[in-house]
């Protein structure tokens, strides 16, 4: 399909982003030559082959793989704000694949595989640090679920094992593993391939990769309506004018049901805010990612030394991203139960992102009853770690017109058919 090189740029950018290399860095450092933008601005064209709504990691990865794997480059990615301004820039950047159902594990493991090779694929440093992921068990029921998860993981070929409190203490020396704790640690699910990544870099890397292949990224372009004629999508109405397209993909998060409503597609989605917080930077002391489902908290230390805390979603549905005092109070208490020595650490900031929660804690991917209207939504609190594989599989789904096996279990039709993919045991809090 045509698309690349149509020359509709706005003049501010006359070339594609160069290949980043040590040589180029040294040369530009010495000569002072400016770096061209990693992605360009464009006038909105009246038509595209594919319009993707939502410029987060899912939308941009879908655009990137449409161009890179399938040669479909006449693609527009529309975002009502700036790219990576939604869930992609608000998550706690934790990656793992130790899910509960074989469907979920296979899917997230493919994502982790893509993440491992992403820096080389995109020629962009995404700072993936595979430092291990630990989920604590504070009671017998959790420990049983951990064993269940470990065994299913091993069966599918994912590295997971249950470890005892002594091993937990070795991996995280500051953890209170004594039996006097309010919620004593009985063991943990240890998942060495898990880790953290720089989420902004993933968004920017995919944006640059897509842009260099001819995809147009349109920021500050809000979708106001979706045109459907006789059960077929024909285009979208935006704040910058109408665009016709035979294929429209909904890659939004908290707003996914509002976007699907525009096409007349009902979604089993509730939008909940998820809050997170970060402390002042301190010297490195915490290597793995530590999660406690019982205490509703997960902790990791960034490369800058800040501790990043996350929790479960707010107790009621909302589109408000205001932080709440209850969240911070609960979070601080729970973190101190795990690591009492952090008591005089100060919080720098807190924020919230919007999560589109589904009844079974699994996503909704693939075609819808409206022909040409695809969804990659319902990503709840676990969307970021699935970005690459979702992009890859959605691109294949759109390009071939057939739903790939990996995402077939996540079809919208599963709710009417009663074939839910229950991932609550591994996805509800355990990031």
């Amino acid at each position, binding site marked *: 399909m045509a698309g690349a090189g149509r020359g509709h740029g706005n003049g501010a950018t006359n070339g594609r982003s160069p290949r980043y290399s040590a040589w180029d860095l040294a040369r530009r450092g010495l000569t002072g030559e400016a770096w061209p933008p990693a992605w360009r601005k464009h006038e909105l064209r009246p038509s595209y082959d594919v319009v993707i709504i939502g410029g987060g990691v899912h939308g941009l990865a879908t655009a990137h793989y449409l161009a890179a794997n399938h040669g479909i480059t006449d693609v527009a990615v529309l975002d009502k704000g700036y790219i990576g301004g939604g869930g992609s820039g608000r998550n706690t950047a934790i990656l793992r694949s130790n899910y509960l159902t074989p469907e979920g594990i296979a899917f997230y493991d493919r994502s982790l595989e893509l993440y491992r090779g992403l820096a080389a694929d995109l020629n962009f440093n995404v700072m993936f640090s595979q430092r291990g992921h630990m989920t604590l068990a504070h009671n017998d029921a959790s420990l049983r679920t951990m064993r269940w998860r470990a065994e299913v993981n091993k069966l599918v070929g994912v590295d997971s094992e249950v470890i005892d409190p002594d091993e937990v203490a070795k991996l995280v020396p500051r953890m209170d593993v004594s039996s006097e704790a309010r919620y004593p640690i009985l063991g943990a699910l240890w998942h060495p391939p898990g880790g953290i990544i720089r989420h902004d870099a993933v968004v920017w890397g995919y944006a640059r990769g897509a842009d260099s292949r001819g995809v147009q990224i349109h920021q500050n372009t809000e979708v106001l309506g979706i045109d459907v004629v006789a059960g077929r999508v024909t285009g979208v109405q935006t704040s910058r004018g109408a665009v016709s397209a035979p294929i429209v993909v909904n890659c939004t998060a908290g707003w996914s049901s509002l976007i699907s409503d525009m096409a007349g597609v009902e979604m*089993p989605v*509730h939008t909940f805010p998820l809050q997170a917080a970060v402390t002042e930077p301190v010297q490195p002391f915490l290597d793995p990612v530590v999660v406690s489902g019982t205490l509703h908290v997960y902790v990791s230390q960034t490369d800058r030394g800040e501790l990043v805390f996350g929790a479960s979603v707010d*107790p009621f549905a909302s589109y408000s991203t205001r932080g709440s005092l209850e969240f911070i109070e609960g979070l601080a208490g729970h973190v101190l139960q795990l690591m009492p020595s952090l008591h005089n650490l100060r919080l720098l900031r807190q924020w919230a992102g919007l999560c589109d929660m589904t009844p079974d804690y699994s996503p909704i991917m693939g075609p819808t009853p409206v022909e040409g209207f695809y969804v990659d939504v319902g990503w709840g609190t676990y969307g970021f770690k699935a970005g690459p594989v979702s992009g890859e599989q959605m691109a294949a789904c759109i390009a071939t017109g057939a739903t790939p096996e990996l995402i077939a279990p996540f079809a919208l039709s599963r709710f009417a058919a009663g074939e839910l993919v229950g991932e609550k045991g591994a996805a509800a809090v355990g990031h």
Partner: protein
Amino acid sequence: MITLSCPWCGPRNVTEFAYGGESGARPDPATATPQPWRRYLYTNANPAGPVTETWLHRAGCRRYLVVERDTTTNEILAIRRPGGAPSTSARHATTGRATEQRP
């Protein structure tokens, strides 16, 4: 901090309440086929704006209440008892709850 005014107990911290989701008419379990039943279970409006929902005063009188709330601001638009609930005095007579706590 959000305050909800319980129709029976008066203004209380939102942490005393449990969120029950959007209110909707339940299909008749005796006659409903799986399709409308699943639609009732899973599908909802999820609006960005005013919505009518059910809450439970879990750490208080343990009664259900109907809350109208704007989901973009969390502003409470109205709170009332579920339809057909007995009057305040009748309820208070059975629970012994002080009447001056009424909103």
